[in-house]
Each structure stands twice: as C-alpha cells, then as structure tokens.
C-alpha cells in the first residue's frame, strides 16, 4: 500500500539524461546527473536503490517472483525474476561503492488482475518475494506504492535519491531525502 512520503522534492529538469529500464531489465549508475526510469509496471515490480553517500542509483524491473518457473529463461535473463534480480541489483550497487546498510530501497507496481479470485496473485507474490529478500539482505524498504489494478511509471533521481511514481496521469513523490 502507498506509504506517506516526505513533501520535500528537488525538481529536476525534464531533459536530464536518463537510463530507461525495460521489462526484465536492470540498470545502475554512478553518474549523479542521471535519472533512471521504467514504464508499464503492471503486476511487475520496479525496485529502486540509492546510496546517499556515493549517490549510486539503481533500478530493477522484474516480471515474476521465482525463477523456478522457467530455469532456462532465468539463466539467460535473470532480471525477469525477483529472486535473482534483487541480489543482482545489490551486486551492481556494491560494485559502484554502495553500502547496503545505507541504501534506500523503494518499490512500485505489483498490481493485480481485476476480479482475480486468488488464482494468480502475481502482484502479491511479487511483493512478498521482495519483502523476503529485503529481510534476508538486511535492506530497509523505505517506501512502496504497490497493489491496485493500474500500471505505474517509476523514476529515481541519482543526485538526490528522489523517487517518483506516475499512475493514471498523476505523479507523486514516493520518497525524498
């Protein structure tokens, strides 16, 4: 469910350079001038990570919670799955000098199919795997905007760590320092 976010937000010019994260994709950058964005988060989940000291920022967009559903695809495209993608995001952040203890992690997406009588619950299972992995790796999930039936766009600003979510034509700040 949406969490209360700080009202502080540092606006960035819309033409700031950006990295786009596709479905089943992962990006991390040490370039603090960069924004990272991902679109069309339906039942998929977007995870942002940011280190306030190094200003390293990363984002993962995974489709499904567990790789066991398709080990061959998991081998080729680990970022498709939460159980492989989240550790991969941490590795990439650490390679950029980020410390998991300082890291601010946020999430968006995890929507459900309307009238899902409990058969799929892909969104819920995607949310659950993220919480399990956060606990396992000692990460603090600072804010999340998940659930519902709508798709979302997620952005993170490497300079200030501000995380924004856009859904149904409206954008809000999910987390800001």
């Amino acid at each position: 469910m949406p969490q209360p976010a700080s009202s502080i937000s540092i606006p960035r010019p819309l033409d700031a350079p950006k990295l786009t994260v596709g479905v089943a994709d992962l990006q991390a950058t040490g370039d603090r001038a960069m924004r990272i964005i991902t679109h069309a988060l339906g039942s998929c989940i977007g995870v942002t990570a940011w280190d306030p000291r190094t200003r390293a920022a990363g984002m993962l967009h995974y489709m499904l919670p567990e790789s066991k559903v398709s080990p061959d695809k998991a081998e080729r495209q680990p970022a498709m799955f939460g159980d492989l993608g989240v550790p991969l995001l941490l590795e990439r952040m650490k390679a950029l000098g980020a410390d998991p203890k300082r890291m601010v992690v946020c999430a968006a997406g995890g929507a459900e199919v309307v009238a899902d009588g409990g058969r799929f619950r892909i969104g819920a299972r995607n949310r659950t795997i993220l919480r399990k992995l956060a606990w396992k790796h000692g990460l603090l999930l600072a804010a999340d905007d998940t659930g519902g039936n709508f798709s979302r766009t997620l952005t993170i600003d490497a300079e200030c760590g501000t995380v924004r979510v856009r859904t149904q034509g409206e954008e809000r700040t999910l987390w800001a320092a």
Partner: protein
Amino acid sequence: MGSLMDIISTLDRLPPLPAAATRLLQILGGPDPDLDEAVRIIRTDESLTASVLRTANSAAFGARGRTLDLRSAVVRLGARAVSHHALELAAAPAFRDAGSAFEVRRGEQWRAAIGGARAAEELGARCGAEPERCFVAALLRDIGRLAFDLHHAKHGGGIPRPAAEEDFLAFEQRTFGIDHATLGAELATRWGLPYEVCTAIRHHHHPPARDEGGSVLLDVVHLADAAARFAGLGLGCDGLLYPVSDAAMDRLGVDRDDLERLALAAAVAVFQLEAELGGAEGHDEDTPPVSHSNQIAGHPARRTA
C-alpha cells in the same frame, strides 16, 4: 466526446492495410493455411520481402550466413516463421501509434500485438488449435483501439479514467457506447478476414462457454492477451482491468505456472524481434526499446537526454 455513430464511422477513415498484408491475414487466418501461397504473396511485396530478409539475416535470429533471397530464408527458417515475421512487420505501421487514446506509449501496442501473437501460436499448438489462425487473431485482437485513437484525435479532451476494479470493457461501453473488442471485430470483418478470426477478436476479453459459441481459438486468444499483459506489454490507463477467465484456463487445462511461462515467452519474443530490428521499430525518444543490459549481448543500454 462525440456519439456512438461518430466512433463507428471512424472505421471508414482508418487507412487500409497494405494489400499483401491483408491477403496474408486472410490466408493464414483461414482454414488449412497454404504457407507456400503466403510466401508467394510476400515475394510480390518488395518492401515486405526486404524486411523479412533483414530479420532473417540478423544475428539475433541465429543466422550464420547471409540469406540473400526469400527462398533461402524459407529453407532456413521455415515458411511458417517467414510468414509470421512478414505479418509482424506488416502490422507495425498500423500499430505504431495505436493506443494513444488510453495512454499506451508509442510502439507499445505493436509490442503487445507481437507478444500476444507469439503466445497464442505457442498455446494453440499445444491445445490442438491451428497455430496460424491463433497467431493472426491474437495479432489483431486490439485493432479496435485504432478507432478510439482516431476519435480521440478528432474530439480531443482529457483521457477518460476508469474506476478502480472496473472491467475496462464495461468502462468503454459506459463511456463510448461500444468497446474496442466489438470495434475490432467489425474492422476485421470489413477487411475480409475469416469469421473465426473476427469472432476471436470480439471475444478476446470474455470468451464464451462452448455451448454459447466458444471454441479453443477464443480461449487461446484470451489467455494469450492475459499473458502479454502479465509481461507488461501494451499497458495504458487500462492497466490490469481485464479479468482472466478461470473457465477458459480449465477448458484448455492451463494452470498458473503455464500462464506465467506463456508471459515469459511473450516477453522474450518481443525482446528478440526488437534485437533483430536493432531496437528501432516503433519507439520514440521517450519510449526506447528494452535495453536488456543483462540479457541480450550486444544490445547496450540506451541513454537519452
């Protein structure tokens, strides 16, 4: 906002598909599709042939040597793969801007069409349905959105918003008096496509039971659409506001894991086609192709400014 008749009349203003594409759809969507005839039709269209050869020669497609002519491409890839590639490429111009009335990003409707079509082909083959017909029906399942796009372009105004938990087809009917599935079936009929394909388009969100006119084809196209949506393809302000039919899953013997694997297949099909096309098809500056920095070698992350 315009009347129901305005929306229906937009069907007459939609540009026709290229003749070769229409003929391909008719052949592949019909009973006992003649793949040799499909290849002959591709050969009559110079730009389509060039596009097919381009993908056939791409590294991502696994070609080891260059394929210089269509005959070699058919030998190497098979008539079915060549025909389906031709349709995917022929459909790209029609779908490039589709979905704008409901905030689907540019190029995304084409990606959803491809992902759904490949998923339907795979599921159809498994369930005893004609794979070509499943492919064609799923490829075209959302063409009705083109009418809403033209209507919105003419009348302007804000993007209408569905309520949470509202079936999006019901929202379309409430707002416009008609839904995109019905419009799509009407358009497909005007294009002369086979009746079964038109019916699959009409019912792709709510496949009826067998004793109410349902069929394996209708269930396949419905579940392929759901799989594409789970892969994040073609999402606009409609999000996940389409129910997935438990009854269709039961009829086809498809469980949750099957559907998830189908979603993965849909996503991978789109990734591969984009890699074959160099990631250029159907995207604008704000909607770059998937970057797959961790997946497809030689397909670097895209940085925009």
